[in-house]
């Protein structure tokens, strides 16, 4: 019997520890005899370390050790796992970028380690550094094999009656989770215990097992609470390796917390992009050509590419589409995936260009998108597993009152304020990876479901309990979901909006399996089990508990194209003389399959939108090209939205049933919220002011 639980807006299961301060994040684990590690960063972008003088550091009170490439044992570079850079820290004297972690000082207290790190004197043999993407644009290579083409986009574009051909730019942005990356590492013989603020504990486990040549079972990684990640904690960054090495060398547990400043230099960022979008259309608005190409920053020590042409392959119908996003390798810190990698910057460019096209054609922006709606995937021709983008446009526009929009720029005012209305589409692929789960039902009817996944605030622990509860037919309060520990069944990285689909499929599968096993004891039909059945059946058979395991794998041969969609409608107010952009309201409609918890899902969407507001209006990491260094490396000058920046947000969750995407019908919602926010705001800014800003963020000087 099924009690409807999935989708209900129940409170987070980890609410209480979070509101009482008892939730323990990685750095909050205190072990006996623990020492503190503080990193030393390189201050040049390229060259080699000439010398490291740790004399003063060693003289400083409490310092236990200073470890660098000069004295660190050398280890095997793991091939598997989730190392974010292709080299291990402390390998040699080479400097790849400013901020590279080149030494660690270990001391008995945080204050002593911090002081010790300040006292380490490093000299360098600087080499010519490549830090300017423009200057080295000729060196760009398509390392990620992003190039694709359908039809002849250039010929079609040249022949098109209406053309938009513009360059859009997005700056470097940093994830800036509130919790800086941190670990506590402890060795016991050849066993490693690691508390890591990680969204990928099994990746860390594999990497360290390989690095130290020890069985995976010897590496125990835990990540119970993660204070935000947004992609930045998806891999093993150098500080994790360094902390683990340090603990091994000093034979003490070591706590290592990256400082806010250090976080800007070696824990990933969204790389700068330059994107050309060329749209060719007929007078009827139909896209005859879509060209999307450009550049993004990379480096020689990571493989990341910002695949901003990925959404180009999915968003609009056209017979002629081509795209490519090559990388310019520079002496800058390693970029990595940041909330909606690829789609987010890519859709900024595409959706800005679509808005420009709507004015060129004098067609309403929503109408233009409906005209070019992709009924099947425009590049591979596969049918969508489900798609409700038209409903998103419709419901979003209705709620917003879009029909009252005067299409002429600068036509809407409120006193001194210019009012602008803009919109944009959103999309993000529905990913899924293999995951395993275990479920145990006890004689008292309580259930523990486990999978070593992660909870960075997405609501995983809550929705998995709901999913298992409804599947088993027991109240949600009877189910506990255990996660964040490599001794539990394997989970994939919690990124790419795939956790609900991947872990959810395993949890659903194991719940079904357990139900079957319990039912089989009495030859019952599993669907007839009630909450009491577990207790009754187990008692009858003198069993204390019963368990099941399930390995869930995505289909190999996919018949469908799977993608979530949405639409944002934005109102901005901009003072005519002092043109700071203020958000008045945003109505966003999303269709992303089944909603597992209406409350946590709404929060995920809101969070994505708010980060999108930051991206549109304030977020930018400034690079001083002379020093090859980021400059605004703190929370006072790297601006993210504060509470009064946000008002008038309204989320519509369009109902969507998808029987094909995965067993539980979810598409993932972590990323899509941010996609399309920046162009919707930029389009509203154009509508308000008549100024088209093609480089983010939209700061005051660009509108003066």
């Amino acid at each position, binding site marked *: 019997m099924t009690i409807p639980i999935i989708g209900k807006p129940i409170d987070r299961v980890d609410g209480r520890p979070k509101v009482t301060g008892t939730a323990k994040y990685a750095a909050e684990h205190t072990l006996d005899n623990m020492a503190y590690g503080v990193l030393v960063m390189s201050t040049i972008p390229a060259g080699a370390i000439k010398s490291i003088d740790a004399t003063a550091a060693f003289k400083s009170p409490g310092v236990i050790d200073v470890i660098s490439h000069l004295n660190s044992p050398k280890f095997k570079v793991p091939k598997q796992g989730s190392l974010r850079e292709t080299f291990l820290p402390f390998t040699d004297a080479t400097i790849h970028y400013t901020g590279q972690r080149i030494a660690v000082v270990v001391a008995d207290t945080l204050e002593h380690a911090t002081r010790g790190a300040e006292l380490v004197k490093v000299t360098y043999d600087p080499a010519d550094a490549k830090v300017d993407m423009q200057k080295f644009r000729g060196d760009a290579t398509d390392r990620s094999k992003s190039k694709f083409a359908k039809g002849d986009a250039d010929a079609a574009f040249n022949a098109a009656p209406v053309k938009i051909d513009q360059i859009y730019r997005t700056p470097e942005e940093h994830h800036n989770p509130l919790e800086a990356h941190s670990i506590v590492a402890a060795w016991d013989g050849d066993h490693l215990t690691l508390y890591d603020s990680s969204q990928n504990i099994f990746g860390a486990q594999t990497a360290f097992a390989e690095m130290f040549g020890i069985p995976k079972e010897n590496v125990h990684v835990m990540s119970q609470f993660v204070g935000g990640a947004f992609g930045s904690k998806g891999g093993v960054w150098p500080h994790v390796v360094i902390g683990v090495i340090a603990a091994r060398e000093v034979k003490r547990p070591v706590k290592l917390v990256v400082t806010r400043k250090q976080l800007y230099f070696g824990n990933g960022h969204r790389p700068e992009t330059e994107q050309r979008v060329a749209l060719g259309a007929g007078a009827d608005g139909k896209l005859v050509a879509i060209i999307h190409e450009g550049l993004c920053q990379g480096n020689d020590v990571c493989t990341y590419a910002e695949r901003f042409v990925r959404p180009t392959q999915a968003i609009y119908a056209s017979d002629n589409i081509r795209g490519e996003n090559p990388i310019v390798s520079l002496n800058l810190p390693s970029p990595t995936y940041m909330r909606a990698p690829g789609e987010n910057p890519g859709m900024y460019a595409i959706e800005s260009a679509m808005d420009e096209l709507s004015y060129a054609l004098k067609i309403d922006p929503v109408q233009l998108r409906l005209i070019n709606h992709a009924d099947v995937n425009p590049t591979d021709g596969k049918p969508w597993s489900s798609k409700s983008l038209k409903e998103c446009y419709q419901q979003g526009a209705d709620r917003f009152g879009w029909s009252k929009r005067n299409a002429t720029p600068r036509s809407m005012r409120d006193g001194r304020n210019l009012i602008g209305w803009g919109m944009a589409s959103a999309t993000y692929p529905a990913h899924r990876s293999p995951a395993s789960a275990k479920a145990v039902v006890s004689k008292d009817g309580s259930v523990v479901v486990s999978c070593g996944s992660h909870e960075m605030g997405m609501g995983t622990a809550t929705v998995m309990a709901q999913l298992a509860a409804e599947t088993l037919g027991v109240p949600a309060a009877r189910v506990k979901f255990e996660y964040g520990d490599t001794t539990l069944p394997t989970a994939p990285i919690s990124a790419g909006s795939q956790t609900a689909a991947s872990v959810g499929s395993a949890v659903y599968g194991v719940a079904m399996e357990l139900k079957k096993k319990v039912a089989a004891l009495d030859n019952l039909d599993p669907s007839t089990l009630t909450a009491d059945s577990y207790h009754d059946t187990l008692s009858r058979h003198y069993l204390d508990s019963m368990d099941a395991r399930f390995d869930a794998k995505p289909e190999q041969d996919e018949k469908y194209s799977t993608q979530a969609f949405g639409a944002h409608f934005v109102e901005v107010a901009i003072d005519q003389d002092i043109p700071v952009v203020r958000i008045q309201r945003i109505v966003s409609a999303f269709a992303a399959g089944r909603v597992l918890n209406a409350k946590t899902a709404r929060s995920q969407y809101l969070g994505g939108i708010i980060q999108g507001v930051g991206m549109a209006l304030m977020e930018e990491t400034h690079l001083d090209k*002379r020093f090859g*260094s980021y400059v605004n490396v*703190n929370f*006072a000058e790297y*601006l993210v939205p504060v509470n009064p920046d946000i008002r008038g947000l309204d989320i519509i969750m369009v109902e969507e049933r998808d029987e094909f995407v995965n067993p539980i019908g979810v598409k993932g919602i972590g990323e899509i919220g941010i996609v399309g926010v920046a162009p919707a705001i930029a389009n509203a800014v154009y509508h308000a002011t008549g100024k088209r800003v093609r480089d983010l963020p939209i700061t005051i000087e660009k509108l003066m």
Partner: protein
Amino acid sequence: MYPFDFTLVHDAAGAIKSGSRDAAKFIAGGTNLVDLMKCDVERPAHIVDVNALPLATIEQVAGGVRIGALARMADVAQHPIILQNFPMVSQALLESASPQIRNAASIGGNLMQRTRCPYFRELTWTPCNKRNPGSGCSAIEGENRLHAILGTSDACIATHPSDLAVSVAALDAVITLRGPNGERQVAATDFHLLPGSTPNIEHDLKHGELITSVFLPDAPHARHSAYLKIRDRSAYEFALTSAAVGLDISGGTIQSARVALGGVGTKPWRARNAEAILTGQKPSPELFRNAAEGELTKSVSYGQNGFKIELAKRTLVRALTDLAGGAA
């Protein structure tokens, strides 16, 4: 952070004695000093905690109000005398930092706060004449969107970050200092120094001297005053530009005007040219624009911060317009 020893003092004499030691620093709220110590920019060997001194009162005295240097920003902002007689001071304080910082930070410490220039604070391996005299200025040809356009020199273009200091500069405040040689008084406008060739010397404050109070003289232009702050986000950010304006308008004429600008100067920028243009005139949009133009004639763009020249003018015009309340 450099090591230091910590002394709690209970009276002014003890404070000055302790504070007169080499490399000694007073601490009150600590919100700026502790931060800069973490950056390794401030390196006191002795920290002297002055919080126990009886210097937190806000009181009406002859001709104005005296604010004890240890009064907290939050308390001054909400004090009835300040709200009524010096609204621009209250507004400047409430637009500053965050509620938490305003609860901790003292008035004296606020006036002593140091620039947010990233080359000074964060990129301590780069040249900075303020941090390391003679090493050069990284901002002049660097990332300088937030830097000053007024009062700059070849040695330094760092902006003074305080909002409060802008309002006290506008209102002819007098700062009382106490040091080994007794008490002395300095006009707020003389307290902060232009960088010139010595940007490391920021105040007329001798080693061992302690700010004990700030006196704000009563005046019609103080009672009718306002502070307008422009920034990229809605709160918790230093000013791109700001304007502290006080106008005494009677009989349709500006009898007296007080103007200072923030976010644009290497020190809190008292706009005497603007005041001269405004005084004795009838408020009008043209007059306000002229005043702004007149004040910014000597402004210098360093590239990224060039927009501040026009933005400062518009900020001032807006502040004057709103304060004049339809008179213009």
